[in-house]
């Protein structure tokens, strides 16, 4: 796709219960061709809703506003037929649980062949040959023989590779991977991440990698967006996010990945995110934030640029910058007990 400018999400909001419960709130995000962008956040923060919306996959009974563009196509409001056309070559997705997305009674070679044929006028034989090629591409040894196997005959990691092969079938410009390694152990996770990285580089795809694990996302992505309670609360180049976080929630996430053996306990963010439909009008992180002051709770806090290409949704970005993880974590313990 020569006319492709990647994925762009503008001011996306997704609500349930006739607009009562806003699960995703004004999210904007760009993924250029050849670029890897990470989307991080806790369970329920709206990562999956956002990333699935990029493929036009909205849950029933939800309403979406804003704009999503894949190349020159505007996704929101497309008919199912138009969406299908965009989904193959424009954008494709890999899910967390490969077993539930694979047809258990179809040989995997046939499954991939079918996807290829549904996206182009290819003969059965050619499509099958390409399916085998894709399986080799994602690192399945002895692909031709394995094409005759059923999903349950593969390990979790292998199944995830097959899902990736399927997603690649129509040569998408953008690949969205929602927690592609969360169900896998560390060694398999590393293999899958390496595969995704290679594919991005060699095929020039844009990659949107969604995960709750900052370290996973950081290992692959050049930019990271952090979501909290339906909003993006910080976004910027990976190095800036990791070295100079400017939003307390990001600091907390970073702290909780630290494995400092000299400490007696892991650092953590006390408390839990606010439930859907019970989100304060001020900063949504305020109940858990050690820096929270009255102004934070007064009104909506907007995303502001803190350095070129780096935005944060916090009133006290300057104070965040001047503190280190330890003092932050100490303060947080006080929040928890106070």
């Amino acid at each position, binding site marked *: 796709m020569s006319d492709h400018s990647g994925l762009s999400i503008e001011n996306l909001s997704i609500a349930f219960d006739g607009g009562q419960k806003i699960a995703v709130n004004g999210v904007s995000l760009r993924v250029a061709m050849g670029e890897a962008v990470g989307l991080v956040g806790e369970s329920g923060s709206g990562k999956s809703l956002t990333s699935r919306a990029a493929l036009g996959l909205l849950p029933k009974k939800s309403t979406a506003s804003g704009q999503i563009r894949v190349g020159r196509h505007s996704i929101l409001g497309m008919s199912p037929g138009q969406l299908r056309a965009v989904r193959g070559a424009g954008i494709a997705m890999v899910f967390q649980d490969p077993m539930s997305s694979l047809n258990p009674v179809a040989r995997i070679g046939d499954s991939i062949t079918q996807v290829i044929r549904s996206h182009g006028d290819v003969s059965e034989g050619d499509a099958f040959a390409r399916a085998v090629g894709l399986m080799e591409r994602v690192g399945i040894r002895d692909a031709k023989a394995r094409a005759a196997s059923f999903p349950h005959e593969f390990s979790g990691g292998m199944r995830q590779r097959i899902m990736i092969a399927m997603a690649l079938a129509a040569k998408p410009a953008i690949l969205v991977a929602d927690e592609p390694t969360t169900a896998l152990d560390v060694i398999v996770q590393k293999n899958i991440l390496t595969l995704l990285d290679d594919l991005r580089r060699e095929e020039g795809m844009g990659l949107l990698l969604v995960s709750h694990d900052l370290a996973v996302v950081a290992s692959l992505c050049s930019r990271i967006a952090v979501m909290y309670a339906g909003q993006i609360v910080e976004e910027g180049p990976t190095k800036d996010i990791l070295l100079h976080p400017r939003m307390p929630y990001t600091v907390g996430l970073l702290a909780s990945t630290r494995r400092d053996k000299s400490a007696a306990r892991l650092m*953590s963010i006390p408390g*839990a995110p606010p439930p859907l439909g*019970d989100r304060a009008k001020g900063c949504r992180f305020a*109940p858990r934030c050690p820096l929270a002051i009255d102004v934070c709770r007064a009104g909506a806090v907007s995303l502001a640029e803190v350095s070129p290409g780096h935005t944060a949704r916090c009133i006290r970005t300057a104070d965040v910058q001047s503190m280190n993880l330890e003092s932050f974590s100490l303060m947080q313990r006080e929040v*928890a007990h106070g």
Partner: protein
Amino acid sequence: MSDAPISLMPVRPGVAWLSKGNWSLRVGIASFVLILLAAIFAPLITAYDPILIDLANALKAPSLAHPMGTDHLGRDVLTRVIYAARIDLQIGAIGVALPLIIGTILGLVAGYYGGWVDAVIGRIVDVIIAFPFLVLVIAIVAMLGPGLLNLYIALTIVSWVLYTRIIRAETIALKKREYVLAARNLGFGHLRIMFRHILPNAIPPALVFAMSDFALDVQVGATLSFFGMGAQPPAPEWGLMIAESRSMMLTAPWTVVGPGLAIVIVSLVVSLIGDGFADKVRRLDE
């Protein structure tokens, strides 16, 4: 350690699950309760006697006094249809309850213990399932002699196997669930694990099936009574009523329309409940 703020939404099953916009369940249950009340309070609804013969009024067409007309012995058809619900609902209830209880216990035991226990129960199930349902029921009643009691015995012998199959499959799946492992780990006894930890989670599909089984039993009861093997005259029973009036079907069609409709309506109502309940179970699973 932090005290995480918690959002608690206490759930009261049994009240909440009815209120969740499931119309087929609600309509089904409401209609069923209505039919049940009609059967129980039949003497308050109709002034006629369902059995007393009144030849002077034989084969009267429907009128204000007899909305469904009268049969060849002058009995009010509507009255008999309403009283018949007592017997027919009883056939459905007993025909479901006994097999459900027996089948559930055997299914639990087979699925939980596995091994030779499972093998023995499984073989018996296979043998019974190999026979066509109706043929087997008729054969057993023919052997034991006509009458309701023998009908119940036949229904029980034939249909517990289906409940056993359902419960056994659920039990085998649930046995591997972590909460059942945890119950074993906590040192709980087998009975406690089977009946408190597995059964409540295994029973919903069996209950869904019980609804269609209820309708089937009512139909089988009517059919057998029609052939003279179930309820005996002069008892009011839908199948028996149709049988008694079948020679007048063309000249006095009202004598069979009432009981026929009753069978259809009860089957419909029960399958509404079954559908609604199945829907409910599916949504709980998600």
